[in-house]
């Protein structure tokens, strides 16, 4: 039942992405409406899948790679939809939806086997820490998409070569605002993710911080974003630099999520 639901969800995301791509080319309003409806539908299906998975596993489904990546895609979807509800950024969906689908594909190819929960993870902190940390990633991913859009648009404006993006992408100002709004949500979540993790570590292993690679890398990510926000508030860093920093920061966040697990190991490595 769970697997079928997951496949339907994946298919719905595919459809939404295809619709957003068609909209990007044709720029017809009715296609955008359709794409958004499909995406909302996919998000709801995905939510249902998470619930089913929770029931099947008997614990918070955030303990293996399949579950984390799928939850990542889920946060990205709802993060995007919640932004959409407040700000209108043209063609943002055409950049976010492919990322969601890629994440879902990665989740498809990871093992979906439900393993018994390791004793170290049996804690109320599991849902709190893991969901906050991954939701932070969702918003940082939105800032990343916004950053890419900014760079594309600014390049055409600077070089005066008006191609595909000039007419389709929104103004630099709104893309820059998108960046700051996403970070305004993503950064506090990231901070909270690190703090809850550290409290949990104290309970589980008796120490707040043990310089495990995942901890180190999340701290590096945190510092990157902190630097960006600091510069934005003090000397007014914005535009291209802020966009590049959002892209670098997200790369660090992705490395924290995957690179660490596969390349460096450590106590977090059963997660993923």
């Amino acid at each position, binding site marked *: 039942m769970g697997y079928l639901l997951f496949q339907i969800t994946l298919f719905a995301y595919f459809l939404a992405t295809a619709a957003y791509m068609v909209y990007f080319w044709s720029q017809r309003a009715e296609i955008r409406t359709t794409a958004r409806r499909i995406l909302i539908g996919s998000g709801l299906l995905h939510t249902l899948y998470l619930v089913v998975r929770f029931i099947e596993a008997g614990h918070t489904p955030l303990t293996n790679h399949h579950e984390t990546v799928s939850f990542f895609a889920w946060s990205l979807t709802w993060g995007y939809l919640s932004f959409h509800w407040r700000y209108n950024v043209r063609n943002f969906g055409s950049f976010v939806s492919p990322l969601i689908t890629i994440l879902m594909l990665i989740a498809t190819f990871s093992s979906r086997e439900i393993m018994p929960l390791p004793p170290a993870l049996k804690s109320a902190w599991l849902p709190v820490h893991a969901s906050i940390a991954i939701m932070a990633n969702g918003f940082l991913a939105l800032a990343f998409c916004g950053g890419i859009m900014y760079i594309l648009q600014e390049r055409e*404006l600077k070089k005066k070569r008006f191609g595909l993006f000039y007419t389709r992408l929104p*103004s630099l100002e*709104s893309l820059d605002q998108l960046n700051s709004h996403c970070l305004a949500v993503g950064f506090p979540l990231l901070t909270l993710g690190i703090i809850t993790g550290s409290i949990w570590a104290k309970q589980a292993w008796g120490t707040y911080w043990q310089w495990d690679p995942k901890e180190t890398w999340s701290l590096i990510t945190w510092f990157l974003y902190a630097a960006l926000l600091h510069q934005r508030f003090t*000397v*007014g860093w*914005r*535009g291209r630099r802020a966009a590049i920093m959002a892209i670098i920061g997200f790369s660090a966040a992705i490395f924290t999520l995957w690179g660490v697990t596969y390349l460096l190991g450590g106590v977090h490595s059963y997660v993923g």
Partner: protein
Amino acid sequence: MSAEKIMILGVNHKTAPVEIRERLSFSNDPGTPYRELKIIPGCEEFCFLSTCNRVEVIFVSSTPGETEKKIRNFLFNNCMSYEEAGKYVYLHQGEAAIEHLFRVGASLDSMIVGEPQILGQLKQAYRDASEQDAAGMILNRFMHKAFSVAKRIRTETEIGSSAVSISYAAVELAKKIFGNLKNKIAMLVGAGEMAELAAQHLMNQGVAEVIVANRTFERAVNLARCFNGKAISLEELIPQLEHVDIMISSTGSPDIILNSSDVKPLMRQRRNRPLFLIDIAVPRDLDPKLNDLDNVYLYGIDDLSTIVDINKAERDKEAVRAERIVTEETLKFMLWLGSMEVTPTIVTIREKADAIRRAEIEKTLPNLGRLSDKEIQAIEKMTSAMMNKILHHPIVYLKKDDSHKDKKVKLALIRKLFNLDPGNSD
């Protein structure tokens, strides 16, 4: 009514040089065409449209060929033979005339496709025709249809949305950089038509303030008054730039007035807020290296022309969609014209009455219990007879031979009375 009675005779920027168009426009006495055209026999309804790019007479006549000859002779005022004038005019009849007017109204036949003025001019021409009592039933409907087709094209295609002038392109770019132009400050350095036009466009988009800088302060004050702005001298330019978001420069200075090194320290003070610089001066006013600074966007006149060209291409694409709408609406109008004949009108009235009769019978029969076939037949016969008797006189009245004008009025009245064109109640 036969569509062949509708004709359009005219000249436009494609068919006739400006000297010819001028001669036909009657701009010194706009009343003349109405006075003169009215007395042409056979010219039942007409409208005279005159703009700087076209002069057209749209008319309805039962003898279109002869009427056209007389109108052409009047237009060219006998200074040119009928055949010679033929080199400059175009003549559309029937379906072609309908399509032509729809295209004109939607600005598909304009020099700059999509420019919005033509619709206003067409409306004015129609208003004049109505005031002069020159428009009748066919023309009323024809012109109104042309307006609604133009409106439909404007809402369903993006033919009117792209910038096709340099000054408008500057505004479009500003919007791509700043999004909303409210609360933004623009500065105009120097003077010149194009720069002032751009400043005017920016004002229309709601910029908060326009600052005017000029070599002679007095000139700056005068210009600033037009924009409700403030005037500064050229020496204050660089310190003022700290607050400015958009700068348009068009001085006659032979040298560069703003260097990259002047602006670089400013960007820090501006907290990196974007700065949009437009240089329309020849020779250039602004250092080309300015474009290399972060968050500074420098555009020269050539760059703006590129945007204008792109938009033109975009507009041509939309025009194809607009043409489809014209074809569709022309067909619809042809159908309406066809329905203005007596015979189809009688058929429609009968069909409508019969539909009502049958619907009522179907409603009533089940309530009457079991009836024999004979009884049912009797009811059918009775209701049909009633219907025919009620319709008899209106139909006889409609069929009666009248002069042409009366017939049209009668048709329109009857169609309205029986509500045969629902939704077309104008």
